[in-house]
């Protein structure tokens, strides 16, 4: 009996070994001949159409640089972080400009000043100034500008025509904007309920800071190293937004959240022609082109005491410890080049940071939206999100979330601003006490 059992176990072991051996042999047979090219690991966000576009531009780069092979690693922000933390970082990666200081302070990024200055194929002054500034930290350049967009006002031209409102030809003031809003807000079926609102007030920290800046306020004051949202200018700006919802009733008052259902809601409302205006970026234009039934235009946001808007964008970074700095630089420079940015733009990644390319792609005759070049004009006065210290992520979240309570009437604008300052100044003091920079 024992010998039978032993025989079976030997046969099983033998069979397992044979299978493993066969697998190894198969792997060996199918291995490609040794590739002499330098391999560059490239990370980018994993949206399907971005990945397809990335493959195209990788093919173009490899065609021009036969000694380099690019391995694309599409993924999420968590994946990028995991790769860096796990010691297998990508050589070149694209990420939000807000992460530039965070990575730079931790020695993750290669400083690029010398290469940028000595490379005849790259001129940083050909890029929008705001995008170049967003790539700098502590006086050094740590990234190359990628795609970006200022926040502008997107509007439904049909609803404007129906209401007899002329879209602004150039600049317009908050008062002019409010007058237009009052005309655009309508009870279309006469049932006593508003079914067409003028504007969507989005309580995201990608929107309300614009109006604080426009009103002469600041969110963070670098000289005093304090958050200053309790200033009269800032509170007044937030109250103005609040009043659009609760006093003038030109914006829907429903609760909004950052993602999920509510994020779709303002999309739906604009697509369903229930809201006439929306402050948004050029990243949204690609989605918007899918809407049927109405024409879309772009204009400047109304200005308060001064012109201001926010810039959202991405940057191209090189890992500080890449074993192939020269090849990585060549690829990063290619990604920032006009042809690569034009390919990127064609799949809805906003506006090229290369000025001439941006001007060219926004002047396609007859292509929606009308007034696309306004994004280029707004790039001259937009600001990066320089108030966000990335190390204070948790406090940032708590502070930003408080503004979502305003449309529900749970908190007043002044209380929200005070809460914002309290949360962030407390976190900032603690961070500084631990030796935190930024």
């Amino acid at each position: 009996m024992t010998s039978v059992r032993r025989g079976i176990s030997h046969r099983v072991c033998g069979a397992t070994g044979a299978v493993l051996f066969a697998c190894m042999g198969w792997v060996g047979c199918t291995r490609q001949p040794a590739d002499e090219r330098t391999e560059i690991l490239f990370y980018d966000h994993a949206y399907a159409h971005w990945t397809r576009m990335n493959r195209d531009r990788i093919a173009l780069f490899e065609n021009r640089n036969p000694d380099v092979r690019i391995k694309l690693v599409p993924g999420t922000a968590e994946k990028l972080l995991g790769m860096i933390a796990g010691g297998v970082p990508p050589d070149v990666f694209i990420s939000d400009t807000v992460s530039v200081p965070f990575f730079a302070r931790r020695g993750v990024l290669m400083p690029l000043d010398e290469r940028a200055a000595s490379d005849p194929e790259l001129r940083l002054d050909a890029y929008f100034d705001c995008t170049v500034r967003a790539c700098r930290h502590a006086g050094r350049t740590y990234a190359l500008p990628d795609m970006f967009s200022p926040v502008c006002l997107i509007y439904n031209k049909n609803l404007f025509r129906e209401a007899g409102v002329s879209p602004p030809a150039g600049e317009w003031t908050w008062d002019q904007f409010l007058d237009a809003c009052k005309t655009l807000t309508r009870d279309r079926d006469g049932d006593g309920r508003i079914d067409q609102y003028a504007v969507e007030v989005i309580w995201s920290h990608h929107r309300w800071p614009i109006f604080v800046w426009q009103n002469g306020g600041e969110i963070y004051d670098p000289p005093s190293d304090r958050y200053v949202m309790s200033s009269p200018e800032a509170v007044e700006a937030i109250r103005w937004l609040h009043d659009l919802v609760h006093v003038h009733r030109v914006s829907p008052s429903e609760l909004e959240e950052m993602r999920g259902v509510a994020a779709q809601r303002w999309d739906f409302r604009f697509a369903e022609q229930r809201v006439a205006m929306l402050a948004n970026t050029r990243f949204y234009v690609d989605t918007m082109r899918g809407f049927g039934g109405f024409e879309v235009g772009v204009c400047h946001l109304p200005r308060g005491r001064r012109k201001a808007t926010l810039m959202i964008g991405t940057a191209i970074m090189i890992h500080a410890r890449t074993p192939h700095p020269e090849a990585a630089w060549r690829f990063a420079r290619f990604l920032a080049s006009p042809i690569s940015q034009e390919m990127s733009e064609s799949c809805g990644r906003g506006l090229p940071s290369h000025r001439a390319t941006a001007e060219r792609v926004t002047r396609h005759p007859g292509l929606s939206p009308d007034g696309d070049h306004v994004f280029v004009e707004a790039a001259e006065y937009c600001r990066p999100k320089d108030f966000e210290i990335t190390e204070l992520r948790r406090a940032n979240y708590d502070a930003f979330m408080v503004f979502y309570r305003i449309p529900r009437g749970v908190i007043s604008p002044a209380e929200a601003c005070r809460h914002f300052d309290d949360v962030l100044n407390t976190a900032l003091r603690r961070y500084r006490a631990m030796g935190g920079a930024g």
Partner: protein
Amino acid sequence: MISGQSRAKALGVALLFVGPNLIGFLVFTLLPVVAAFLLAFCRWDLISPPRFAGPANLQDLIADEKFWYYLYNTTFLMLGVPLSMFGSMFLAIVLSRNLPGLWAYRTAFFVPSITTGVGTFILWQWIYSPDFGLANWLIRQVAGGLNAFTAAVHLPWQVHWDGPRWLQDPAWAKPALIIMGLWGSIGGTNMILYLAALRNIPPELYEAADIDGAGAWVRFRHVTWPMLSPTTFFILIMGLIGGFQGGFAMAHVMTAGGPDGATTTISYYIYQYAYEWYEMGYAAAIALALFAIVLIVTLVGWRLGEQRVHYE
């Protein structure tokens, strides 16, 4: 008598079979568990080296109001566990009868539990859409029907039901998620477990009850319920453990933890700290607290179960 050489050979063969699983367990389970325990006493942003912080994370956690609120959310959402359990039991009892087309019913009830989670969540997002969703459409239809009825019989009452704002209203968001969870879980694995358990109840017990003149309720109360108690106990314990660990996917896909944190659970809070705010140490401290809570609840459940569960 097995010789030392044979014993060693047998051990080698055994290790060969156990090896893949053992290595997987060591690398992907034990090591992360130990690392998470150690990280709970460190500050680590994933990129800089971890710094020892002593019990600071745990002290902060005790004073963290959000942690307690999210623990409340998690516990509230677990109200779905007994509801789902009794629903599964009811369904199993109904489906254990000889109904025509039984296989079709069983399949129909089981299908939601094998549907991909994300797909289900997006479907329910649409159902709960305040303006276009099926849920509020039904409510408005019912209101319309009532109004037509009251008008027909010349009653002065009219109702104006628009339906709640479901996932956008802090008061309704949690009940909305519980309802969605019930849809997926009542006809799922628990129903199958109950069906199997019902088949194992000896028919003599029912015959004896019939002879004693027991009605349907008495048969259920004194035969079915006690005989199902081991299954009920198993489902309850697994439900509690799963409940404490659950809610991440729903929050991530449907609500981002909102509105106003109303659907943030402990597991989503861990994710936020780890991957949105890069505070791995604090995230590990929350995970450690969650482990302690699950352990205590399971032990208490086990102790109570020993007294109340009827094993044949």
